[in-house]
């Protein structure tokens, strides 16, 4: 008896160790149990009695993480209802962890059949032949700019699912308190500065406007001043052009000279959204994915407007797409799923209802339905912003370049380098290395 117990304990220990080193043991993020929990991931014949073979595909994503996991679940349900022989195993990660997880999965030979990519990371994956060409799909409904963002030399490598952009969100109550007129689409940085000063004057803890100073904001703001981070065909960096330097100076002046934008100490570790939600910030330049959070958590009146420009207007354009793994054996099912989430009317409707960014299937019907969901009242600004869009440079080493540029921007903000010096050095280092 004693021997049996010992053997049992040892076997149990074995199993424990072996189970923890198996590959696919993650629970799907979908809480309502609609997606399958499957530990081996790639079984072709999961169903027994059907005449068609059951196919199971794994889908990895980040954009639903946090507020929209249920919405994605609804879309998956709708897809599975139309495609009875396909089951989708959804895995959701927070954006910060997603790319590490994805890279690790690919390195470990367990690339998901379909997964999500954004514009910044798309080129790296496409260049390394990790993702498959997508052909034979009807893309007439899809917004052309988003399609282009995920095509290389005319070949489509990803199907965009949604896009989002950045607008200026403002606190109407603070504007009323300071006696300032609400921003309009005609505003430039000048009018913005005047309004920001008046709101700042409301008190020590009130601030007029906030824009982060980092690579993403930089590459767009310089365009507002007629500059650009790279030359038109993206073959060279133009980081320290005079227009860029001027734009950076203007951004920094708002912190250091006018202090209408809080510096790092004044932010005190608080995020910009939190600052806005606390009712102490007049204007915030941020993404439209903030709408659901602000709708739920801001206890003051707010609305949006197209970002003010300097010499011209320029706004961000972000898009996420679903790509298909080159090495998957279930390409057909995978492409069907990608097509559904990207271009189908059902998916667009679900997305609209949940106020989860903008569907790429931007028909008039969809646009009108989008505008009807408020707050914010001035949703038209989101659509108008599309007229001035600037996309992220599509570079393989975008992460490293962004970090390097950020270092120099930080030094400029802290006054260690002048904006000219910072951008000169950034230009030198980045052109030299990449």
């Amino acid at each position, binding site marked *: 008896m004693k021997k049996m117990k010992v053997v049992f304990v040892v076997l149990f220990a074995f199993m*424990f160790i072996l189970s923890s080193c198996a590959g696919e043991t993650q629970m799907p993020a979908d809480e309502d149990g609609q997606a399958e929990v499957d530990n081996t991931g790639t079984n072709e014949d999961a169903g027994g009695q059907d005449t068609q073979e059951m196919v199971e595909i794994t889908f990895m994503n980040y954009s639903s993480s946090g507020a929209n996991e249920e919405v994605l679940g609804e879309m998956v349900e709708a897809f599975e209802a139309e495609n009875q022989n396909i089951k989708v195993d959804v895995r959701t990660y927070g954006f910060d962890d997603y790319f590490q997880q994805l890279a690790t999965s690919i390195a470990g030979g367990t690339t998901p059949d379909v997964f999500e990519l954004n514009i910044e990371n798309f080129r790296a994956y496409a260049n*390394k032949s990790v993702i498959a060409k997508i052909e034979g799909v009807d893309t007439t409904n899809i917004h052309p700019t988003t399609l282009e963002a995920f095509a290389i030399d005319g070949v489509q490598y990803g199907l965009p699912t949604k896009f989002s952009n950045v607008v200026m969100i403002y606190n109407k109550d603070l504007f009323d308190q300071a006696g300032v007129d609400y921003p309009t689409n005609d505003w430039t940085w000048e009018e913005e500065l005047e309004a920001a000063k008046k709101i700042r004057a409301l008190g020590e803890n009130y601030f007029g406007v906030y824009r982060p100073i980092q690579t993403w904001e930089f590459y767009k703001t310089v365009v507002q001043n007629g500059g650009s981070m790279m030359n038109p065909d993206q073959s060279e960096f133009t980081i320290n052009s005079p227009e860029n330097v001027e734009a950076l100076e203007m951004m920094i002046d708002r912190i250091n000279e006018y202090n209408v934008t809080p510096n*790092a100490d004044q932010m005190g570790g608080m995020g910009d959204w939190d600052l806005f939600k606390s009712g102490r910030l007049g204007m915030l330049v941020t993404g439209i994915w903030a709408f659901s959070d602000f709708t739920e958590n801001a206890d003051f009146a707010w609305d949006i407007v197209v970002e003010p420009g300097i010499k011209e207007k320029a706004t961000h354009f972000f898009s996420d797409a679903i790509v298909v793994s080159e090495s998957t054996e279930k390409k057909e099912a995978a492409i069907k799923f990608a097509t559904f989430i990207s271009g189908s009317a059902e998916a667009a409707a679900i997305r609209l209802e949940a106020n989860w960014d903008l569907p790429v299937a931007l028909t008039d019907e969809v646009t009108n339905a989008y505008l009807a969901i408020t707050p914010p009242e001035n949703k038209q600004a989101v659509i108008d912003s599309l007229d001035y869009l600037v996309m992220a440079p599509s570079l393989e080493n975008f*992460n490293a370049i962004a970090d390097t540029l950020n270092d120099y921007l930080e030094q400029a903000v802290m006054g260690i380098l002048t904006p000219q010096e910072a951008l000169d050095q950034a230009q030198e280092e980045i052109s030299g290395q990449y």
Partner: protein
Amino acid sequence: MKLLLIRNKKWIVLFLIPSVIGYVVFSLIPMISTVYLGFSSWDVISGKPEIVGMSNYLKIFSTKEFYQVLGNTLKYIIIYIPLMLLTSMLIASLFNTDVKAVSFFRVLLFIPVLTSWVAGAMIWRTVLSSQYGLVNNFLKLLGITGPGWLTDPKWAIVSIALVSVWKDIGFFSLIIFGGLRNINHSIIEASKVDGANRLNVFRYITFPMVTPTLFFVLVTAIINSFQLFPQVMVMTQGGPLGSTQVMVERIYTYGFKYYQMGYAAALALLLFIIIMVITLIQMKLQKKWVYYE
């Protein structure tokens, strides 16, 4: 020894096998691959690593960043180690007294050790906030303007060291306390009879007899210092201005954010060598100050 009879050996081996397998699969094999990867270039998502010889190492030594990172780690060690040793020794001596409810304090001080670093770091990030954090507001009451603990490049690594002391003090003081308890009381009694005062007792008896434990604490703490990671990732992410970039943070960033796993592996092997050399030096110096009976 009776326990090592042939018939017992079977069971000994059987029980050891799970641990050995775990070690081989999760530690040994990854270590060997890291050595291999250090000589290659691999972007993780595409196919196979390609051998590039010493170029990763040459690149590492030619960047300013590497020396800055070592400098940051050194700054951390200079603040963390002495402070941690002194306070742990002090608290261990306090634990060694017969005050009522001393075990309650032992538990209290151990709680930070049990807290997850992520949770602890998030709380400290708020507490150390320069405008709204508890620390600076408390200092304001005393008329002192506190610095930007996590936003000033000169202070960031200092803050991380201080927070690390908070986290580890319960652990190390408990270990030193164990060492203190092992001191034979009759020697101390005898010395008191001979007229030794408290300071002499500590200097000539307690301290020498606890040096083996202190040695263990020192070696472990220094190894851990070189492996500094969660505090940095949660509180400052290597900033501001790279003042809290340390080896493991760089390994993670290069490997998983920049997709340069070969470079990261080279950094990892370098870190291993550095830690090994320092530990060996410490082992050699043992003879000079550690007293073994």
